[in-house]
């Protein structure tokens, strides 16, 4: 399988602040690759280096086999970027936003109009084509930004936190479109701090924190390796449970009013606890990316 992006020892510093501290990864053609991490983990800095905006501090980074330092124009001609902030042109209509953007790629006007129609239909925006940007809701704006990122038929689509700030309906709309694009074989790079988003969309992902990659792999496998199959949640912190867990050799976490036990045998542990410790509430659930994420990056507040 061919490799679209290769990073080796990639670093980015802003003065004394190290945003990305030497990371290695390779993104394959046709996969949806995720960067998951808390705010300030270095996700956006990495993305900015990939689309050749932020110069790399050290290490190497190639996109489509081209060094980002050598030929940014050729790289940028083949990627589509959906940035975090909405930066649509407020003075243009929905359709005009796409055709003006097509011009930056040197796409001739008739072809641009064809593509704009195709993308607006795909994103469910065709009915709104003559509306002003200010009349669009947050979700519609986001869909338009994604449509705009597709105007040059990119070989690589970069989505930087594509659903931050959207309501649940809009998020699912965006996910649905991204899944369709993935099925069509588009290579997608996604950054997010939503676990469900990473879990449903990504074939492979990395979890980043403080500029480093902590783990890498397919989401389900990462969860299985890092936390096990299931989580037993015990609420109300019954006395003696933590000691019992330690003696039994369970992997567990003791929060203020909650004990979390990570295991492959949830049912058995659940029964054991239910019989011996009077808990407020005790449940067994499937382990998810969030369990792994919090285990790796801690529970303290960021920023």
């Amino acid at each position, binding site marked *: 399988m061919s490799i679209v992006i290769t990073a080796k020892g990639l670093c980015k510093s802003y003065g004394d602040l190290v945003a990305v501290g030497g990371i290695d990864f390779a993104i394959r053609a046709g996969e949806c690759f995720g960067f998951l991490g808390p705010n300030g983990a270095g996700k956006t800095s990495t993305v900015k280096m990939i689309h050749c905006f932020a110069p790399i501090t050290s290490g190497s980074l190639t996109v489509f086999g081209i060094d980002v330092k050598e030929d940014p*124009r050729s790289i940028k001609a083949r990627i589509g970027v959906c*940035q975090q902030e909405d930066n649509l*042109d*407020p003075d243009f209509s929905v359709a005009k936003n796409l055709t003006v953007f097509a011009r930056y790629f040197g796409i001739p006007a008739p072809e641009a109009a064809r593509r704009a129609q195709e993308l607006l239909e795909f994103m469910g925006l065709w009915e709104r084509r003559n509306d002003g940007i200010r009349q669009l809701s947050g979700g519609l704006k986001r869909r338009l930004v994604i449509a705009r990122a597709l105007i*040059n038929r990119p070989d690589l689509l970069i989505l930087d936190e594509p659903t931050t700030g959207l309501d649940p309906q809009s998020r699912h709309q965006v996910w649905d479109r991204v899944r369709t694009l993935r099925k069509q074989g588009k290579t997608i790079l996604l950054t997010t701090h939503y676990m469900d988003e990473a879990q449903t969309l990504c074939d492979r992902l990395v979890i980043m924190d403080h500029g480093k990659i902590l783990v890498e792999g397919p989401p389900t496998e990462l969860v299985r390796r890092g936390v096990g199959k299931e989580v037993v949640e015990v609420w109300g912190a019954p006395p003696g449970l933590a000691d019992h867990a330690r003696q039994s050799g369970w992997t567990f976490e003791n929060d203020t009013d909650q004990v979390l036990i990570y295991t492959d045998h949830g049912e058995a542990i659940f029964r054991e606890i239910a019989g011996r410790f009077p808990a407020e509430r005790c449940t067994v659930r499937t382990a998810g990316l969030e369990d792994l994420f919090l285990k790796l990056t801690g529970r303290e507040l960021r920023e």
Partner: protein
Amino acid sequence: MKRLLRAFSLRSLRVWQRNRDVYFVTWKTNLVPPLLEPILYLLAFGAGIGALVKTVPYRGEMIGYTQFIAPGLLAAQVMFQAFFETTYNTFVRMYYQRTFDAIVTTPLSLEDVMAGELLWGATKGTIGCGVMMVAISFFGLIHYPQALVIIPFSFLAGLFFAGLGLCFTGLVPQIDAFNFPVFLFIMPMFLFSGTFFPLDVLPRWAQLLAEILPLTHVSHVMREACLGRLPGRLLGSVAYLVVITVPLALLGITLMRRRLVK
């Protein structure tokens, strides 16, 4: 320097086209200042001050007061249009609309974007000047066809003021800070570059100081052209503007890169 030059391409015209398209979306509001401003000035100064000062001495002859100020207004119009474009308007595109963030993800370099901004700033100066010329022509204050040289010349002058504006956009912390360059550079130039009175009335040292001001040279060329006297002393002024515009434009682009690329 070589790397800087390599960063430019003809794609900067795409940015110019984008700004032009926005200009046409909002064209009605855009045409109000260059159409009404000269009429207001000519009425106030022509009927008001002109009633007291019928003629002024200009290079050895007496000319009508409105005849004197009309070309000065054209010069000031180029300055205001171009400078305000690459200060306030560029700042809005850069900071509030994040327009440049989007454009630099396409094959355009940041230098292309900035060059497009400068070309557009100069174009706005030219449009403003051209529209104003039409308005002033109705007062019979412009000699054609000699005065047509003003159109290409206003593009050069516009490029200078656009470059000046871009330098400040690269430097100001916030949009309110444009008050400083406006009141330290632009308003003094507007008042002391021979817009409203001939520089000969000033003391010698002040005249020499005024000779450095770019707007003095712009006014001078506009006035000679409006009076139908060409080419006269124009080449010196044109050369002066070219010499100061090129480094200033490159400086503006460099400051913008320093501001935006971290």
